């Protein structure tokens, strides 16, 4: 992955000028490159990583394992794309192993998630089974540890 993307993946708040400083390039070409990658959907979007407990957001989140019947044309794609479009779905991946889709959903409460699973997901033709796991506690999210790691203390001047 190009260094510009690595930096943005760590911290999307960096401005073109800050990125230029770090990469030793000029600001204009950085801005152009970012716009280009946004157009080409190399960069899908930007979001903050929020500790929901601390933010007082008591939504529930769940991982749903979904088994599907693949289709002759396109395999799992048509169904998976259809499932991914629901607003409740935050992420959706095709997996190897015991099930086919890992669907991450969020809802205001347990009932909302249950309704999504029973009314929307399970009723789709081609969905063979679902198993819903509710998230209990966040330890690490999108590369960030929940709970601040203490800064190591260094002496101020050393050889």
């Amino acid at each position, binding site marked *: 992955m190009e*260094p510009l993307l*690595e*930096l943005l993946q760590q911290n999307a708040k960096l401005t073109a000028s800050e990125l230029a*400083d*770090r*990469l*030793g390039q000029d600001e204009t070409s950085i801005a152009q490159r970012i716009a280009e990658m946004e157009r080409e959907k190399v960069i899908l979007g930007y979001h903050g990583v929020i500790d929901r407990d601390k933010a007082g957001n008591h939504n529930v989140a769940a991982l749903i394992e979904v088994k599907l019947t693949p289709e002759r044309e396109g395999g799992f794609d048509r169904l998976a794309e259809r499932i991914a479009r629901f607003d409740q779905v935050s992420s959706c991946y095709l997996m190897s192993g015991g099930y086919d889709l890992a669907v991450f959903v969020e809802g205001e409460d347990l009932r909302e998630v249950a309704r999504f699973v029973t009314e929307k997901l399970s009723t789709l033709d081609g969905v063979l089974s679902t198993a819903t796991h509710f998230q209990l506690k966040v330890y690490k999210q999108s590369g960030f540890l929940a709970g601040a790691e203490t800064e*190591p203390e*260094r*002496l*101020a*001047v*050393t*050889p």
Partner: protein
Amino acid sequence: MSKRLEDRIARQVAQIPRSGIRDFFELVQGRDDVISLGVGEPDFAAPWHIREAAIYALERGQTSYTSNLGLLSLRRSISRYIESHCGVAYDPAREVLVTVGVSEALDLACRALLDPGDEVIYHTPCYVSYSPSIVMAYGVAVSVETRVEDEFVLKAEDVAAAITPRTKMLMLNFPTNPTGAVEPVEELEKIAALAVEHDLIVITDEIYSELTYADEDQGQTPRAHVSIASMPGMRERTILLHGFSKAHAMTGFRLGYACAPQVLTEAMMKIHQYSMLCAPIMSQLAAVEALENGAPEVERMRRAYAQRRNLLLKRFGEMGMPCFPPGGAFYAFPDVRKFGLSSQDFALRLLEEESVAVVPGSAFGEAGEGCVRACYATGMDQLKIALERIGNFVSRLPS
């Protein structure tokens, strides 16, 4: 009447001057508003997988002594690593000695090889322990100055001029602390030829060899590190020193090593076994993890340093602070002479007026006068503020 305690200190120790770094450290100590670019270590904690390996070692009760040379598993990892990184093969059973930091290895090398009066050539400005290690081993430290005009490259002709019939050893450190200089291969080859011609032992401290940046300045992929030990006729006369402190951010683990022909390793081991016995086992086990699985983290940290270096050089340029682009380590060594202050005064006033700590170049030998060492192994946010403050400071100075 009993003698004063001061008079009981061994002459060899009493004659060693106090470290300039310690003086400066005491000034900074106790002030919490200071952003320090005065350190000589990474701002990263050791990568988690390495810390975890040390914890695992403790959980399994691995708290004993090891072989004097160090764990064989670690020596095997070191041997494999040095062969790929430096292009020289060492027998892990007989030619690798694990030490408590490179500092111990340096001390062992001096004590194992020097007789009173033997001369050792070293280049300045340099790491603060070189000259004292030579003197404490009853050697004569012969300094060869490197110059800001040459971007602190060590000139083979300067080395040649310092060689006398008493010269026994040559001590090298590239990339260099404090200047960040990387020796060009052509110059290193000339120095190697001198060592062969005059039958010198070479101690080469390559602790910063993973942290180089120059090739990327030209938009090229980084070149492999070139060690003087890999040059013709050098393996049999070279003690290659390396360790885990810098590239793996493991300073507190205190772990280094020496690779050298068996006769030399054996002599160093004699001292090590009676003074240190062995390096701590949990550090050694963590070091195995570092060598076997640590390369991606080393590269991640190196790239972070490279980005900070870019920012620092750009800001120095904007504020009119002359600074050659350092090829390695994590130090910049800007030239402050045009501001009309000694490096000591520049550092003192910067500390007092803007609460930023840099180390006066004079702490690294007379040849460092006129420059200051700024370490960019500091978080980006802190570094930005520090650079802003330095900018404010120099804008008030006559230039």
